[in-house]
């Protein structure tokens, strides 16, 4: 036995366990101790890069991964992580090259198709995203990542998508998973069921109260479901169509008001102006008030 190799294996397993349990500081301490003995060990370096990525130090992660890939250019784990790091850095073209390379080497890996699909969604190549998600599901109809990508495509309304089947499948498979809940909340929001979306978002926040995106989501939904925004219901429920509806209604009302006595017409005009001012100012004031610390 080569004792250093076993130690590294043990360290990697322990670090993985600690990372899963969000004990990043402890994982880092353990890893540094091991790296002091074996500074060139690829798996240890990879875990170091992962820790950097989890602590949002993407540049450090990228540098470490480049050094790992210089030693082992085909290391799938390192390339996968590099893909995620490049996405965080906003270097989408480079990320695409990495994922394409991985797909060439592992053409039957559904999660890779899912990752590529998500990248295509982000770069607004929606049809391609849909095709990739479908291909991933063809390889494994129950792959959670592909289901997630497919559900996202359905959510944004790819024209060639099937009736929404991915989200129910995700709910069946992993109803408490953060991704599933987030998708559910987004889907409910799109359907205009804002209170239901808020309840789901609150469940998300309860599972991770230190997550800024979840906090922002709950705040937005609390804003949208606040009683004082009831007069803005058409806009909140139907978006731009609702705004057009209200605007058309206002035009009609003002046209009719011309034929009414001046007092009545004047009152209507003032009310309308007050409504316009309210719709422009109150939501942002309320947003600030709800977000006060």
């Amino acid at each position, binding site marked *: *036995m080569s*004792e250093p190799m076993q*130690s590294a294996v*043990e360290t990697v*397993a*322990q670090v*993985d*366990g600690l990372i*899963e*349990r*969000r*004990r990043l500081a402890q994982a880092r301490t353990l890893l540094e*101790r091991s790296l*002091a*003995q074996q500074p060139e060990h690829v798996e240890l370096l990879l875990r170091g890069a992962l820790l950097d990525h989890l602590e949002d130090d993407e540049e450090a992660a990228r540098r470490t991964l480049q050094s790992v890939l210089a030693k082992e250019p085909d290391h799938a784990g390192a390339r996968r992580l590099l893909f995620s790091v490049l996405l965080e850095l906003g270097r989408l073209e480079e990320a695409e090259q990495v994922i394409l390379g991985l797909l060439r080497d592992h053409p039957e890996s559904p999660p890779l198709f899912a990752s590529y699909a998500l990248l295509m969604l982000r770069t607004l190549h929606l049809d391609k995203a849909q095709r990739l998600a479908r291909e991933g599901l063809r390889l494994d109809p129950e792959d959670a990542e592909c289901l997630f990508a497919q559900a996202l495509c359905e959510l944004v309304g790819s024209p060639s998508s099937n009736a929404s089947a991915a989200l129910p499948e995700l709910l069946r498979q*992993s109803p*408490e*998973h*953060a991704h599933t809940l987030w998708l559910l909340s987004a889907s409910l929001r799109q359907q205009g069921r804002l209170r239901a979306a808020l*309840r789901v978002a*609150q*469940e998300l*926040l*309860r*599972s*991770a*109260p*230190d997550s800024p995106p979840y*906090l922002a989501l*709950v*705040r937005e939904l*609390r804003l949208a479901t606040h009683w004082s925004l009831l007069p803005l219901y058409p806009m909140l429920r139907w978006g731009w169509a609702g705004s057009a509806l209200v605007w058309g209604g206002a035009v009609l009302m003002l046209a009719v008001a011309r034929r009414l006595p001046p007092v009545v017409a004047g009152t209507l005009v003032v009310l309308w102006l007050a409504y316009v001012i309210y719709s422009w100012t109150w939501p942002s004031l309320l947003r600030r008030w709800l977000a006060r*610390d």
Partner: protein
Amino acid sequence: MDERRTELERVLLSDPFDAASRCAYAELLFGAGELEAALAQFELLAARSETAASGLVGAARCLHALGRTKEALARYARARTEPGFAADLDLERLAADAQPASAQPAGLRVIAGGGGQVVPLQAVSAERVRFSSIVGMAELKKTIRLQIIEPFLNPGLFARFKKRAGGGILLYGPPGCGKTMLARAIANECNTSFVAVGISDVLNLWLGESERNLAGMFEKARSQKPCVLFFDELDALAFSRSKASSSTTRTLVNEFLSQLDGLGRDNDAVLVLAATNMPWDVDPAMKRPGRFSRQIFVPPPDAEARAEMLALKLTGVPHEIENFASLSAVLEHYSGADIDGLIELAKERALADSLESGRERPLSNEDLSSAASAMTPSTLDWLRTIRNLVKYGGSDPSYRDVESYLKRVKLL
């Protein structure tokens, strides 16, 4: 030596669970001065229940040799609670030297509201801590006494009301606020044995070993009834299965749930306590009835507690502070650990001044105030996170006491 080493490595390759060989291998590495490698081997031994004591002592020796004295003492203290513990002379001497000077009665205080009775201020070793040793937290101690301690001490009375002794209680709160100390105090108040379990006592990289270790801990507690079984960092041991990506984590949680339910076993008179800084990461099934159904929030020390802590920690230190109460008022949200840090910072200031002026001067109010302005309480992050949960996460009865606390301290 090399032959012996090669032989041991060959044996361990074929049977990694051979504890005797691993112990010998660890000693060999220690003797050869390969301290880090020896430490890794001793840690492996410490993770197994049957070699925990020797593993922890060995790890403590390695850490002491590496100059990491604090960690060494912590390991050694844990080793003491393990069966089969054998004292190490060097480490005994180190532990004795590390006893704080304030263990000597050096100051007096009048018990507030009492009849002028005076008692000496003393630091208490962790093993002997009782409620009376824990400053402040009056309401919390009262709740715990009623819900936990009295059922243990008066099982007959509670049995007439059909209330069983035992069950699970989860202590949660910001880090450094005394959850672990409280758990020890509960055990001492109940006059029961105390089995403390940390992450490294359970988690093991070998498949199935973590579950075995956990089951072993429960068996140990059952064999020492009545007993308090305390799990520190519960969120790591019972990490939410919906967030876990590995099946080993889920299997461990399933085993934990099974042990708590006492299926086929008798959990009566075993009080299971747990502590966590991240209750939202604990698997929700752990908080259901029959498991950790009671959750108690352990807040940062209140003003009275902070004043007493300051007085206690400054015993034996030259200072001219008369009014600890007014000082503690500006230390809102400070944990015990924060107060330690504050005092150290203030001492540095006083010492720097003394050295510069060539004249020793005592610690003053200004030193502490100045240190406080340079520090932020470590509990604030946690309190802000839990505030998000309480304010935006919808109504959750398990966080009612946190909500009251946040309103009281005007964070909500």
